[in-house]
């Protein structure tokens, strides 16, 4: 498989520009749109002196391009402001809640693609059949379901009525503390495996199951729909028929040739799925008391903790851009036609 080093460098460079763009947009939202940005930044308990100080710290007394410059400098030197709610600096709080979110989002994301793509393919190759109808209806209904509503209902059904799964939290403190579990990396699944702590691993998986399933639904439907459409498109292309007509066995054509044609654009579209997953996490984490970035953001939203909200927004947007770049590079290794 050709890996074009030049392409990767180009892509990484353009990532820098995308991140700069993201920062500019947040600058517009936070500094240009509000009439008095310092009030949002200090919170209402602030005294006149504190507000004045914030004005100076945010460089609001300077011309706008100087403000933008300082905005960049502050962000890249890790000075993301202080939350009103917790009185703690925003960036460390976000970073400390990062592993919980990654663990959840990645599981959901894997689940979504691992189920969604095969569903889409199987629907496409039996277009018009019962399987196809079921997949189509499922993907439409799934993509139309508010993730928070589904989370509430499944929690009610599985935890309250059936009593099969734990309602919330990431790990049971009883089990964690009594087995001496130490969160080293913050990824509890990894930590428990490394420490050979089976009870914690099982507890963590049980607790992750429901939120991950809920979170995966929307991207799952999205990838199923997209895969179905793409497979239909590829199957109608001439090269499929020519390969078969030349005598390559049909199964080989499907597994080797068609599959890669479908996977390449599906991979390219995973970024959007990821975007939905991580924003869905805002709502799912608050329902399942999952102490990740989503929980932090949702809590900040409930109390209008502005620096924390904007910090989370910038952070998530940057992660999203990075993931998209990684996905583009992955796509380029599958599809030789891709050029910048």
């Amino acid at each position: 498989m050709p890996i074009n080093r030049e392409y990767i460098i180009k892509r990484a460079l353009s990532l820098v520009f995308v991140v700069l763009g993201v920062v500019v947009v947040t600058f517009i939202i936070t500094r240009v749109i509000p009439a008095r940005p310092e009030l949002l930044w200090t919170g209402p308990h602030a005294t006149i002196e504190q507000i004045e100080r914030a004005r100076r710290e945010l460089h609001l007394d300077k011309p706008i391009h100087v403000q933008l410059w300082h905005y960049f400098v502050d962000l890249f030197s890790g000075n993301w402001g202080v939350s009103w709610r917790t009185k703690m600096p925003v960036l460390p709080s976000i970073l400390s809640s990062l592993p919980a979110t990654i663990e959840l989002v990645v599981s959901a994301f894997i689940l979504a693609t691992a189920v969604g793509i095969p569903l889409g393919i199987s629907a496409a190759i039996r277009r018009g059949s019962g399987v196809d109808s079921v997949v189509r209806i499922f993907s439409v209904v799934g993509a139309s379901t508010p993730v928070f509503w589904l989370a509430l209902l499944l929690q009610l059904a599985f935890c309250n009525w059936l009593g099969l799964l734990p309602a919330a939290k990431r790990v049971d403190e009883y089990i964690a503390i009594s087995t001496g579990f130490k969160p080293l990396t913050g990824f509890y699944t990894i930590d428990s495996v490394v420490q050979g702590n089976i009870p914690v691993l099982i507890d963590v998986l049980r607790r992750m199951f429901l939120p991950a399933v809920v979170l995966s639904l929307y991207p799952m439907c999205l990838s199923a729909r997209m895969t179905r459409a793409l497979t239909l498109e590829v199957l109608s292309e001439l090269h499929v028929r020519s390969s078969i007509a030349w005598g390559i066995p049909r199964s080989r054509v499907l597994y080797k040739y068609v599959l890669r044609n479908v996977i390449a654009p599906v991979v390219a579209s995973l970024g959007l799925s990821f975007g939905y997953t991580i924003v869905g996490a805002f709502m799912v984490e608050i329902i399942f008391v999952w102490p990740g970035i989503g929980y932090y953001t949702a809590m900040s939203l409930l109390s209008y903790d502005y620096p924390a909200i904007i910090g989370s927004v910038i952070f998530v947007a940057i992660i999203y851009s990075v993931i998209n770049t990684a996905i583009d590079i992955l796509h380029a290794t599958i599809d030789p036609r891709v050029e910048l």
Partner: protein
Amino acid sequence: MRKMRIFRYGISRAVLVIIIAIAVAVGVVGYYALAIREQPQTRKTMTIFASISEMTTADPSTEFSNSIRWLPLVYETLLWYDPIKNEFIPALAERYESRDDGMTWVFYIRRGAKFHDNTPVTAHAVKLSIERTIALGQGAAFIWAPVNEIEVVDDYTVVFKLKYPAPLNKIAASGYGAYIFSPKVVELAGAKNLTDPKVAEWLNRGNDAGSGPYRLIKWEPETEVVLEKWPEWWGWKLPGYPLKSDKAPDIYILKIIKDAVTQERLLLAGDIDVAQYVPLEDLEKLKGDPKVQVVIKPSFQNLLMLINTKKPPLNNVLVRRAIAHAIPYEDIVKIARSGLARIASGPIPHGMWGHFDNLTYTYDLDLAKRLLAEAGYPNGVDRPLLLVYTAGDIYEKRTAELIAVNLAKIGINVEIRPMSWEEQWALAQRGWEDPEAVQDLFLFYWWPTYITPFDFLYNMFHSESKAFNLCYYENQEFEKLIMEASVLEGYDQARALEMYYKAQQILYRDVPAVPLWDMIYVEVGSRKVGNLDKAINPAYPTAVFAQVLSIEE
């Protein structure tokens, strides 16, 4: 007729295999997830307490908010106060005396008490702690306003000299701003002195400098706070000390769980041991559940509707009175709190010293209409009134809606606006300069910093209390009465009480605010948590004194 389907079998078999593989994987994980619920041997006893709000700061001098849920476990004051029995429980002070009509107070510090850093608790530490709190001047520092000077007589005797008589025993028992901590923090934090911001930073990183029965071992203010029993605490060894139990939990965890439903679920699933907020509608069901116990205790927290007395038409006392009579107090208690509140009678809550029972407004729409007509609004008020409340508080939300429905009946339209507390308070602050630009009605909780009627009356109704007098109420006679009463409280309680009553009668007549209901606290605990009712004290709202709990295995 033959269909030429090229893509008939091949790939679907592969997809089938993938789907089956995933299904099997999910099934296996699911099986383990569901079937194996191995509960390992617990070596330590543990209590998990669900807190509805995140912790704020960890600085005992300035903290004036949610951290009261753990501060009294890690830090100690000189005294604790039991407002229901109206008696003091010795803490770091073994005993105390007041002299000169409440102008001088002497506290005798407990020998053998030490801080978690193993330095002894001394009179000097007490002086430094309180002086730091006063010097920083934040949070509840105002409680020490009467103090003129703190003198260290010897290592175990400290004397407070006051500017005017005041109940310093109650002040010293305050849930905020009265904690004693180790002066060694200066050294540990690498600070120049106690007021150096480095001390606060060190504390807010999750360090503690207390002397209480528990130590802070994990500080994640947004998700959880973990306390561990400190075996060296003097109280464990003191026979007959009321605020302790031999079976107190080894680990006490404060878990932040932001909503009542989840708290209830986790409690029923055994994931947590004490839930402070459960949906009140579910309470009857919970009472019947053998796994849990429901503890109901009166509180000193009440909800009032502050009226903007400077903005027409509310600057007319008749309009305010009409509003007071148009509020369905009984319905509000039934619907908003499922009956778990008492209809307020005056701004001082039931059960507290200074409360009087005959200050309730009647719900009488005819009277309200008459008053409104008399005020010159026979057809109702021509503009909608803005009622603000704290977003996310369902009790306030329901109360607000019920008020709006009923005021509409007498021709007053109300626009309800939920705001975050921060926004709401910021808006209301502007009212002192421009009362026309701010809200008309403000749903407002109050609970005392230390237990005195003065705390309620001064903060919400004295014109010098710009921060919380959000009725913008000014009345010389009233202010004179409560200032005098607060001084008398230190040595002549009967006369003070009489003056507090007069003051409340003025409020009843002027209606700067409508007291709505006094909250009844509900805590639901697992059955294995014994002594839960004893661990709750309305003077320290929302705190559970874990050292009193008795964990049954």
